[in-house]
């Protein structure tokens, strides 16, 4: 078992963030309308940072795998540029698990993406506990929690009179060590209170999702629903905006796109979406998923079956951003619940025969 990481207490968040910002570029959540977005930390501002009770609207993938980047140039080879160390504050457990998923894809042994790797190695992660799970949050369906489990350098739990700061890595330990004067010890009672807070949020999350509870593991449900018409019915609501894939913290489709610049040719790496009609089409004209319902099914299969077969866990963290953004009002939980009910009905029909 790993040795217990340092856990300390700080009364003012600003002191911690100032210390971080001294060492690296720091990004913090800021309220924009009803959502939180990331912005560069400005210690001089009168409201330099807020504690986000819920995940931000943009995803952490934007820091690691930007919308568009130069991946190769011609004829001289391109090496990834040096990345300055940077820190992001306010990640939730769902965000941490989305990083774990992207790591599997981009840091895979055989072919590492050197651009992703550079950013990943230079990112300092400060996560925090959730307090207000959104109406679309369903992390508990896919092994998530409303508080960080692992994958952070520091985790912050908001308490009545301050914050519990917990290290989750050597980098985090070193930071606490270096800035020990900022912190005090955490009384046992406060840790107990943190557990109570966490349990309360967990309960709230479970209540929100009670109506969507499934009878079988999601993998089993989607794999047994290959012939279901529900995907095609759902497709009627979809307006093909691709928003679900863009806002998804785990979707990582991209395409390589060649461009002519003034004095070189560039190969760009740009986000793509499996919801796009011609996404899988080949030059000869064949398209295995020209029907929208098939694309919706493929996306769910990739998330809950194919990825799992390959890497051992779901490619969904239950953050609910796809539902927040869906212009057609589609809800992954509703789709899964419908498939669940359909399978139950099928089973019943079989038995009564």
């Amino acid at each position, binding site marked *: 078992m790993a040795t217990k990481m340092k856990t300390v207490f700080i009364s003012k968040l600003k002191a911690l963030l100032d210390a971080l910002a001294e060492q690296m570029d720091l990004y913090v959540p800021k309220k924009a309308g009803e959502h939180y977005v990331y912005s560069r930390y400005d210690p001089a501002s009168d409201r330099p940072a807020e504690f986000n009770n819920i995940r931000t609207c943009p995803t952490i993938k934007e820091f690691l795998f930007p919308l568009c980047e130069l*991946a*190769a140039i*011609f*004829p001289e*080879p*391109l*090496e*990834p540029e040096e990345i300055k160390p940077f820190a992001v504050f306010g990640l939730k457990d769902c965000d941490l698990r989305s990083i774990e998923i992207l790591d599997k*894809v*981009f840091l*895979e042994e*055989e*072919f*590492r*993406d*050197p651009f992703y790797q550079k950013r990943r190695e230079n990112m300092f992660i400060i996560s925090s506990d959730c307090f207000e799970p959104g109406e679309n949050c369903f992390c508990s369906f896919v092994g998530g929690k409303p508080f960080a489990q692992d994958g952070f350098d520091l985790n912050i739990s908001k308490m009545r009179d301050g914050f519990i700061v917990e290290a989750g890595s050597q980098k985090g330990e070193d930071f606490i060590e270096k800035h020990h004067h900022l912190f005090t010890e955490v009384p046992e009672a406060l840790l107990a209170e943190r557990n109570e807070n966490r349990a309360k949020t967990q309960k709230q999350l479970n209540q929100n999702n009670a109506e969507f509870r499934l009878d079988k593991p999601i993998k089993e449900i989607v794999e047994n629903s*290959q012939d279901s018409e529900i995907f095609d019915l759902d497709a009627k609501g979809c307006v093909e905006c691709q928003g679900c894939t863009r806002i998804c913290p785990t979707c*990582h*489709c*991209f*395409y*390589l*796109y*060649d*461009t*002519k610049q003034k004095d070189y*040719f560039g*190969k760009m*790496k740009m986000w*793509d979406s*499996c919801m796009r009609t011609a*996404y*899988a*089409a*080949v*030059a*000869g*004209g*064949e*398209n*295995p*998923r*020209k029907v929208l319902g*098939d694309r919706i099914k*493929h996306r769910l*299969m*990739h998330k809950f*079956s*194919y*990825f799992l*077969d*390959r890497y051992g866990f779901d490619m969904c963290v239950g953050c609910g951003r796809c539902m927040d953004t869906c212009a057609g009002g589609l809800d992954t939980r509703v789709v899964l619940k419908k498939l669940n009910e359909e399978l139950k009905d099928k089973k019943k029909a079989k038995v009564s025969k």
Partner: protein
Amino acid sequence: MNENPYQPINGEIIEIIDESSTIKTFVIAPEEKFKFVTGQFVELTLPGEGEAPFTPSSSPAQTKKIEITIMAAGRVTGLLHRCKKGQMVGIRGPYGKGYPVDDFVGREVYIVGGGVGLAPIRSLFLTLVDRIKDFKSVVCRFGAKTPNDFIYKKALLGPWQKIEGVDMKLTVDKADGSWDGNVGVVTTICDKSDVDVKGAVAVICGPPIMMKFATLKMIEFGFKPADIYLSMEKNMSCGIGKCGHCMIGKYYVCKDGPVFTYEQIKQYPNIWA
């Protein structure tokens, strides 16, 4: 190996061979020696214009130049067809898994090919012929739309027919005055008596519809799905199992293929489209 998997190595088109009205073979000299396993593919970049996946049609034994046979089918292939000798190109790869030729040793190899699908098959054929005594026999059943659409025509009608250990038959969908061979789709020249299915392997490459019917034919002959090798055409973009375009079920065609056994992929929807 290149540290940046998106960075191609440079190459020059040193020869262009017209194969048919829509198909050309490009002979490319890469800046450095290029090794691959037959059936693996490369990503060919026309700088500033685009990139597309192709399986080389040359023998892997030839490392100083590679040949890529390309049908003008889309934007990038159309532009490639307009290129002249001396054009610089980029090559990434080789990627994926090729034909497991060593597993074919001592067995009959039954190859069904059609149209531009003969490109990967040419590479395999040359590889097999190099060590023809290792195989019980190599049976080839190739088809094209018309006699003019046959690529590698000279070799097909001449020297390849005469190789000992090779049994070759050709067919066209539609004949013209010059053709006195079989007329009909490729499965019309496939006969159960061609091959002792027990211990044999089938290799199929061609347009999707042909691959579908040839596969069904092989099943009818008694081939096990695990003994039918298919070279799958998908729109591989990154080539390294990340970008998602070429997925068939859980497989990335670029990494786990492009050569699959029918057994591996038969459970997934729309594999022939």
